[in-house]
């Protein structure tokens, strides 16, 4: 049990918080038809990450997240500026800004000699979920022991903090996020600015993507922005319930995915384990598939059955 608590538990926490923060925001991205924004924004924020890193000299840190948020704001403003001044369509303006920001990030990386730090390809794809350890933990009671909790890996604490901030922000501005996603014209006519809440969403997405990215890699980040939200959408017609369900799906995928990665291969007679981040994404994908097939009312099976019965 100690071993589970010290080596597996912190990794599970990491996966759960990463899945939760991305999964929650994914609801609004999917509804606004900006599902791949999470992917795009994780490139745009590179210069912000590098600058944040120069201040903090750590990969998982609040300065880095601030840098990411700042870079997201700069890129959204640049897109708007180019769109208005250059008379080009939004897609083209985004393409120009995204690639330029990423290029600036690469140059910054080179020039500041931070290139060697943890930003290699393997790391970026799969993350390092498994490397989280909590050696100060001896029993489950340590979960309520502040000094033991403070010895949790920095990654875990940061992602927990990010999750909390994001959940509170979404709860606080739920009705504004809802109305600006559904009917931006009405929102504007009521004095609720769609631009400001669009920007808030993008900044939150950037922060969540960057916080989760360094821990779990880009596969899981992209999967988590889309799968839990899309799964939950099949199951309910209420946005409020959809937010809860998607959070539940994200947490379940985090726990089940890690456990399956760590314990399933040995049980099946294979040596070692598989990538936890990859497995979490697989579980999320399977849940989505199940929902698409079997969800009441929106599932393929249900609709077939209903069609047959009514004909």
């Amino acid at each position: 049990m100690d071993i589970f608590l010290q080596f597996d538990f912190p990794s599970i926490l990491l996966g759960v918080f990463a899945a939760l923060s991305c999964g929650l925001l994914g609801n609004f991205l999917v509804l606004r038809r900006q599902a791949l924004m999470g992917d795009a924004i994780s490139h745009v924020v590179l210069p912000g990450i590098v600058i944040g890193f120069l201040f903090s000299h750590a990969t998982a840190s609040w300065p880095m997240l601030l840098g990411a948020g700042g870079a997201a704001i700069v890129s959204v403003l640049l897109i708007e500026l180019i769109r208005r001044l250059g008379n080009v369509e939004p897609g083209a303006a985004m393409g120009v800004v995204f690639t330029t920001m990423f290029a600036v990030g690469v140059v910054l990386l080179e020039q500041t000699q931070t290139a060697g730090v943890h930003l290699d390809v393997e790391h970026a794809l799969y993350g390092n979920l498994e490397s989280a350890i909590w050696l100060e933990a001896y029993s489950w009671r340590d979960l309520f022991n502040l000094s033991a909790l403070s010895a949790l890996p920095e990654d875990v604490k940061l992602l927990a903090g990010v999750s909390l901030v994001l959940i509170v922000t979404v709860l606080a501005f739920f009705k504004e996020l809802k109305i600006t996603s559904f009917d931006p014209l009405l929102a504007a006519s009521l004095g609720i600015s769609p631009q400001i809440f669009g920007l808030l969403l993008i900044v939150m997405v950037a922060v969540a993507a960057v916080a989760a990215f360094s821990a779990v890699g880009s596969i899981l980040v992209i999967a988590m922005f889309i799968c839990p939200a899309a799964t939950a959408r099949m199951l309910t017609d209420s946005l409020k319930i959809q937010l809860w369900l998607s959070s539940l799906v994200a947490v379940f995928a985090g726990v089940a995915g890690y456990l399956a990665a760590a314990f399933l291969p040995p049980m099946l007679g294979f040596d070692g384990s598989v990538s936890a981040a990859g497995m979490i994404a697989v579980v999320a994908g399977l849940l989505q598939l199940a929902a698409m097939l079997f969800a009441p009312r929106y599932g393929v099976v249900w609709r077939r059955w209903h069609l047959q019965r009514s004909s």
Partner: protein
Amino acid sequence: MTSTASLHSVTHNGRRTDHEAAAANPFTVQGLTVAYHQKPVLWNVSFSAPVGCLTAIIGPNGAGKSTFLKAALGLIPKLSGETSVFGAPIKKQLARIAYVPQRSSVDWDFPATALDVVTMGLYGRIGWLRWPGKRHRAAAMQSLAAVGMQAFAQRQIGQLSGGQQQRIFLARALAQDADVYLMDEPFAGVDAATEKAIVDVLHQLVVSGKTVLVVHHDLETVRDYFSHVFLLNGQPIASGAVEDAFTPQNLQKAYGGRLASTQLQGLAAAAPHKA
């Protein structure tokens, strides 16, 4: 309300005229110019909605009717122009305005019920950091009943017919309890029964002293539904009571060659002959 106003008029003569001028001008647009990519859509449009009247904004496709509403409300960028609502800049008077966008401007697959959408009309006055409560849902329910849609309150909006969706939008505007109603094509793609129901509600609004402005497409029904018209084609062509402004000459000016002369005569012939 009325008694305080008359009290003021006794004590401050100067303010009385201000009050009256403001009350007489629920929605006034001055010198509105809008361009998309350097191509002007609206050119120096000025218009004042007649108070307590039902006015149709008519003009050919691409005349800038929807753009006029959006730009006047400040929802899209404009090159110049001011909008005042009851004598004050519109930015300060948003609570007195209810705007109904085109039905096609939103995604009806959105996870929301009819009641959810109507409740959104109240978001402006719920205030920051608050969620809609029982009181707001009850008010939304009343508005739904006013358009005969209370039975559909818990229905997901995508499962409603076009006419029902338009009624939901109307109910949302009613929930806003405004003084000025601006509607963008509320009759687009609705069934005859819904059209009748919407017209009835609009007439009730006017009877209770509200000012209603509707972007309208169907010239055949202008005389039946509206008391005033505003003809627009990039520039303002004419505005006023239907008898005065809805004339073959003005229609010809607004629509150019797009209306056949037989059509024009038909529309003119529908005029009541009092002489």
